[in-house]
């Protein structure tokens, strides 16, 4: 453990920007949500009506979980924001742990440090300490933020602890994943798959009212702490113990492996390249195909799940005559189902934007790892190299949206007895998201060409669009602000005949961003590292 403190300082120095932003965003989202709910539903009666509506809609529960106490602002905030903020805390922990463990080993920097007077586990210990510290800070900030608005202190503390606790569990998940794989990319993918599984288990358990399923998921525990609804403090012990077990398991595995090696052995490759591997695009496909497959599978699973649940949204009407009357005016139960499906497809489009940014920024990864240099020193034009990873970004995001839309349509169609028709209808409604998704690739490309040091801003844009979409309505933001997100302009293809205007100008905007980024890259120096 010698040198752990030094390693902690090193990690904090490297993350001096990243970490505070994560902490403030995670804690801030909750504080802002609570304020917005208090503002929108000032009276208990309004809140109870909302609670009843949610309670009877499995599809909504799948997205955000059950409502334990609709009478209080705190209870509704816990319902609305727990899954989102706990997932964000988990993501933050994964990123931090991978960055300071496996990524360091992969680049060989760990070797440099390991040869100094630094203990074998100092690096991992430091990564865990930093991630834990960030989660504790998030928990404290949430407690302060909610209690500061006059909500009960006990509930605020339970809420903060549930979010921080989820982050702590995924600190352990990421550390374990880092022992199993040799690449940081695979470590992140493995940990993200675990988070996806946790979300699915919770969504299925909550939607189908199978408590046992939801109890298998840390995201389920976060809700079952029941902040502001008769706190169950003992649930917090689950987080602590699970996290400890995972970290201990990782430590056991770490003792059995060499520096730089994983537990999954590297298999020998082919002595010659396949015939297709002869162009930049083929290389981009070879490098990105595994990731794309993972994304496509996730989209199919999520599409199937929400497609299957969509019909049940209409059930609300049966229990609530008042709501039924309102619904008749806007088009009946079918309209409610469509609204839910539209929201889900819009979410798929947004998440596919994450894939588009990731695939586009592979360009930067290749450049800073000095792997662009040997390729560009051969007879490859710069724009053709750009087009290779960009092709994966554009084609891949369209592909996963197609897969998600088809899966949702098929699942929904099977339940109402018209699979082919619903599959085509939802595919269409999914495809209208594509131009908005592609604008994110455009933003990433422009940054890569013009400001390669600031490509992280592409991720910031994705988060900003997500927040505008998710919280814009709740916060009653001005339309001009909400319209900054390309997703605000996607036509509602399920409820009305599509207007192709926004699709055309979003497409044109994307083309302009991509061209500008490409031209800028063609004119600039290649960066070294």
């Amino acid at each position, binding site marked *: 453990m010698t040198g752990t403190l030094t390693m902690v300082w090193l990690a904090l120095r490297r993350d001096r920007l990243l970490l505070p932003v994560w902490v403030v965003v995670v804690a801030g989202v909750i504080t802002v949500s609570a304020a917005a709910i208090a503002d929108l539903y000032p009276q208990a009666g309004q809140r109870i009506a909302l609670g009843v509506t949610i309670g009877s809609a499995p599809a909504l529960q799948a997205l955000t979980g059950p409502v334990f106490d609709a009478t209080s602002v705190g209870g509704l905030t816990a319902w609305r924001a727990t899954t989102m903020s706990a997932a964000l805390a988990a993501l933050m922990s994964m990123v931090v742990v991978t960055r300071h463990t496996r990524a360091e080993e992969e680049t060989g920097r760990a070797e440099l440090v390991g040869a100094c007077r630094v203990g074998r586990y100092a690096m991992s210990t430091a990564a865990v300490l930093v991630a834990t510290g960030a989660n504790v800070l998030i928990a404290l900030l949430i407690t302060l933020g909610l209690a500061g608005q006059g909500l009960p202190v006990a509930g605020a503390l339970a809420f903060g602890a549930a979010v921080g606790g989820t982050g702590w569990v995924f600190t352990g998940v990421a550390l374990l994943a880092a022992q199993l794989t040799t*690449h940081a990319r695979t470590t992140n993918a493995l940990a993200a798959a675990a988070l996806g599984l946790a979300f699915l288990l919770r969504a299925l358990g909550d939607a189908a009212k199978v408590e046992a399923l939801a109890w298998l998921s840390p995201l389920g525990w976060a809700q079952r702490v029941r902040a502001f609804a008769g706190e169950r403090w003992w649930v917090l012990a689950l987080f602590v113990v699970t996290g400890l077990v995972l970290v201990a398991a990782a430590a056991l595995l770490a003792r059995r492996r060499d520096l730089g090696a994983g537990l999954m052995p590297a298999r020998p490759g082919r002595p*010659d*390249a*396949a015939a297709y591997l002869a162009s930049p695009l083929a290389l981009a496909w070879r490098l990105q195909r595994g990731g794309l497959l993972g994304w496509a599978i996730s989209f199919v699973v999520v599409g199937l799940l929400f497609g299957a649940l969509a019909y049940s949204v209409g059930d609300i009407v049966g229990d609530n005559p008042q709501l039924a009357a309102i619904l008749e005016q806007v088009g009946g139960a079918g309209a409610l189902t469509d609204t839910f499906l539209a929201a889900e497809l819009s979410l798929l489009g947004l998440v596919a934007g994450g894939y588009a940014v990731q695939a586009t920024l592979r360009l930067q990864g290749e450049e800073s790892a000095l792997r662009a*240099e040997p*390729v560009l020193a051969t007879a*490859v034009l710069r724009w053709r190299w750009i087009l290779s990873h960009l092709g994966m970004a554009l084609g891949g995001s369209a592909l996963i949206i197609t897969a998600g839309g088809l899966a949702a349509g098929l699942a929904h169609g099977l339940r109402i007895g018209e699979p082919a028709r619903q599959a085509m209808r939802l595919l269409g409604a999914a495809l209208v998201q594509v131009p908005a998704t592609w604008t994110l690739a455009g933003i990433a490309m422009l940054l890569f060409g013009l400001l390669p040091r600031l490509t992280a801003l592409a991720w910031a844009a994705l988060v900003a669009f997500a927040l505008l979409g998710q919280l814009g309505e709740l916060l009653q933001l001005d339309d001009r602000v909400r319209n900054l997100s390309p997703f605000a302009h996607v036509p509602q293809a399920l409820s009305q005949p599509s207007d192709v205007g926004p699709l055309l100008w979003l497409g044109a905007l994307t083309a302009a961003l991509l061209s500008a980024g490409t031209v800028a890259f063609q004119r600039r120096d290649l960066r070294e590292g």
Partner: protein
Amino acid sequence: MTNSPAILVSGLTKHFGKVRALDGLDLTVRTGEVHGFLGPNGSGKTTTLRILLGLLRAGSGHAELLGGQPWRDAVALHRRLAYVPGDVVLWPTLSGGEAIDLLGRLRGGIDRQRKAALLERFDLDPTKKGRAYSKGNRQKVALIAALASDVELLLLDEPTSGLDPLMEAAFREVIAEERRAGRTVLLSSHMLSEVEALCDQVTIIRDGRTVETGTLAGLRHLTRTTISAELDRLPDGLPGLDGVHGLTVNGCHVRFQIDGEHLQVVLRLLTDSGVRALTCQPATLEELFLRHYQVAA
């Protein structure tokens, strides 16, 4: 093949922000020669190569490669040359064999028989994944990829810094064959013995500027010879003589370095003092190198 130089660089400058990486560099590599490119760390060797490859834009000055302009004609030129970077990074999920084929094909084609022969000569296992190779083996991958293509010009950036002595010998053999085949090679290196063994011409740079260029023989002429002599008596005036450096006197034994142009005067002085034993050592490249480097330090 024409008589125009393969590489012609004059007055080349390059700034990175406020840092001046190249400051009026001159470099001429004639077609068919193996040209050594020497300089201390950070003197601008890699920057020069990257400008020649069109990866960086030149500041001011003139750079010409195989009769074309490196930035404007990059792709047309790249078909006729191969490059081995000093820092070889491979794709972690691609095997060495795949990387060799890929880079060769992107350059315009790869000679399969030549690849097989080179794999044998450099004793490289092509089935390992990029991550599993040591530094030396990564360099071999890049070298084989470069040598297995049929090109006119090889740009090599410290290609042997990770190779063991056996592989270094294999490398020298291969480069000697390349020269016989009429290829032009620009070899940036720190291995002086390698440069002495392989290169016809040498250019030494420091702080982004050319300080010496010419044939090894020509450069030696400009440099100091080490003289060690056993004399009957110590000659008067030896310590103060022009061109004498590092004089040590031990009884009647003297040892010193002497600049080439003052050799005659000193030899006359020595013979007048009764020479009993005399050894003369021509300057090694190492001394030449150190002389320029130490001024830098």
